[in-house]
């Protein structure tokens, strides 16, 4: 049993597709229990019964469409018109634009490619230090993970059976905290920026607003629709997908119809990758729960820690290590069902747990060895990976502090959540 677990872990580390590793572990579990392996098929089919799952392909498609259009450029122009007059303005522009964009594209690395390509040279031109720019663009690639309608938030809601509406609300203040702290650091770095400040221009602002007139209603469609009780999350996702399609393909005509199959394929490849893991984990999780793994975990954890605070410290350490090793989607699917009952035993609210989980996993995008953003940035901007590590480090430290605040101040997450 232990030998098999070690072999599976080894396979995962060697780079076997995670869904295959998880499927194997589920089947080994069934075998041990004399359960027919056919049950794996039943579990895979049961992904269809998860509520709101349709939101995942729909939002992913909308995000990919947005990133292929000129929407990123328009977004940068608008935020620039709004914030560009401030000292350190362009850095703030980058952070705000990236956060907004990541919320819609689900932190799949698309942000660095779509926005980084515009922002990195612009920052360079404005005389910011190169290392700062690289760090900023790399760490912004997963900023906004806590803002609706990001994919990880939805996935956590689906897995933990927590209201996705509440999660969307809970993410707002912690997400803003990260944004504000990084902005503070950016202002500090650029305090001696030699660049002559541009004046706020009402004309440019008007032009930028007009240009983005079609995209500005998007957050309203998503959030307004959900919070007015008018739309379920998956319905808001469907409207968003159709709306983005109409705006970018039919009105702006920035995406040709012939490009659509490629974009749909790319977005659904991501969805297929996530849902394949989700489907087989339903089986392995059910097996682990029936085998009493959460209780065993709880027993060993309660031997280590007695208070909620010490539990949270232990959780954070665990999540940071986890985040450095596996991607956010697999982590949610695999780990959340196991830690939910333990967190409940320490009176951690499941909504707060979700925010802590995602905030900590966000750091995983920037921590070696597998931080996705590091590799995308290294590849995209043609910088050695070690250089990207060290450029990102100050941002990592700041985000780490914000994660600590988010973890030990549940009120920040729960303030906006009703009940």
């Amino acid at each position, binding site marked *: 049993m232990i030998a098999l677990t070690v072999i599976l872990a080894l*396979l*995962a*580390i*060697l*780079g*076997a*597709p*995670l*869904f*295959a590793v998880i*499927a*194997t572990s589920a*089947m080994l579990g069934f075998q041990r229990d004399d359960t027919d*392996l*056919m049950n*794996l*098929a039943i579990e*895979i*089919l049961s*992904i*269809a*019964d998860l509520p709101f*799952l*349709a939101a*995942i*392909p*729909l939002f992913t*498609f909308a995000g990919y469409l947005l990133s292929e259009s000129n929407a990123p450029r328009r977004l940068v122009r608008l935020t620039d018109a709004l914030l560009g007059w401030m000292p350190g303005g362009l850095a703030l522009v980058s952070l705000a634009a990236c956060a907004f964009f990541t919320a819609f594209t689900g932190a799949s690395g698309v942000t660095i490619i779509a926005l980084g390509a515009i922002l990195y040279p612009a920052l360079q031109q404005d005389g910011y230090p190169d290392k700062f720019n690289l760090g900023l663009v790399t760490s912004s690639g997963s900023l906004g993970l806590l803002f609706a309608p990001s994919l990880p938030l939805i996935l956590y809601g689906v897995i933990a059976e927590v209201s996705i509406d509440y999660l969307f609300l809970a993410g707002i203040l912690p997400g803003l905290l990260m944004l504000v702290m990084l902005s503070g650091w950016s202002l500090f770095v650029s305090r001696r920026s030699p660049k002559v400040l541009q004046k706020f221009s009402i004309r440019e602002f008007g032009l930028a607003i007009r240009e983005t007139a079609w995209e500005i209603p998007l957050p309203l469609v998503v959030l307004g629709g959900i919070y007015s009780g*008018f*739309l379920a999350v*998956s*319905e808001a*996702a*469907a*409207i968003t997908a*159709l709306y983005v*399609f109409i705006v970018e393909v039919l009105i702006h005509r920035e995406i040709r119809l012939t490009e659509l*199959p490629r974009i*749909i*394929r790319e977005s*659904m*490849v*991501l969805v*297929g*990758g*996530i*849902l*394949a*893991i*989700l*489907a*087989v984990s339903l089986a392995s999780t059910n097996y682990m729960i029936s085998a009493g793994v959460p209780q065993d975990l709880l027993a060993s954890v309660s031997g280590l820690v007695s208070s909620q605070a010490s539990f949270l410290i232990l959780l954070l350490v665990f999540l940071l290590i986890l985040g450095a*090793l*596996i*991607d956010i*989607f*697999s982590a949610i699917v695999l780990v959340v069902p196991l830690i939910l009952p333990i967190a409940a035993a320490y009176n951690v609210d499941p909504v707060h747990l979700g925010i802590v989980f995602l905030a900590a996993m966000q750091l995983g995008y920037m921590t070696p*060895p*597998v931080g996705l953003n590091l*590799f995308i940035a290294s590849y995209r901007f043609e910088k050695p990976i070690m250089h990207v590590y060290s450029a990102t480090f100050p941002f990592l430290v700041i985000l780490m502090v914000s994660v600590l605040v988010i973890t030990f101040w549940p009120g920040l997450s729960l303030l906006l959540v009703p009940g």
Partner: protein
Amino acid sequence: MTHGLLSALARLERFGRLAENAMLVVLLGALVLLAVGQIILREVFETGFFRADELIKLLVLWLAMVGSVAATRDNRHIRIDALSHLLPDKAVTAIRLFVDTFAAVICGVVAWQAWRYLQLEIEFEDTVLINVPAWMAHIVVPGAFALMSYRFAVSVIREVFVMATGSGAEARR
């Protein structure tokens, strides 16, 4: 002779990609239209498509499965991708060969188990959407896993080829 075989394989490759794309476009389009149509019918006409919710769920299942097959072809399945940045190309190819063989076998086993379950569904005449035989909706699971098994096997063959000819860079594609 080998040339003919290779070009046949290349044609198959193109056809497979095209078929995946076509299915994904149709499935996603149907999902968007059905979900939006359902909202309009509900809010404006206070009615709805018959069994739309169940159909939406089946569409998501199909999207997930066809998307998985496409992810296998594009080599975009989620993996812990730490070693490929640390080890030399040759070692990476050798490891890939090993883990892809594993993935091909496991997908084959899952496909076989899902196929067995499908036989049961046929035998018991299970239905979805009132009177559609369930196996018609669920055949996508054994089908997708069988195709993934095949795709991983193709990757293995390609990796063996790369190892044999020593053109290292190709393996990461």
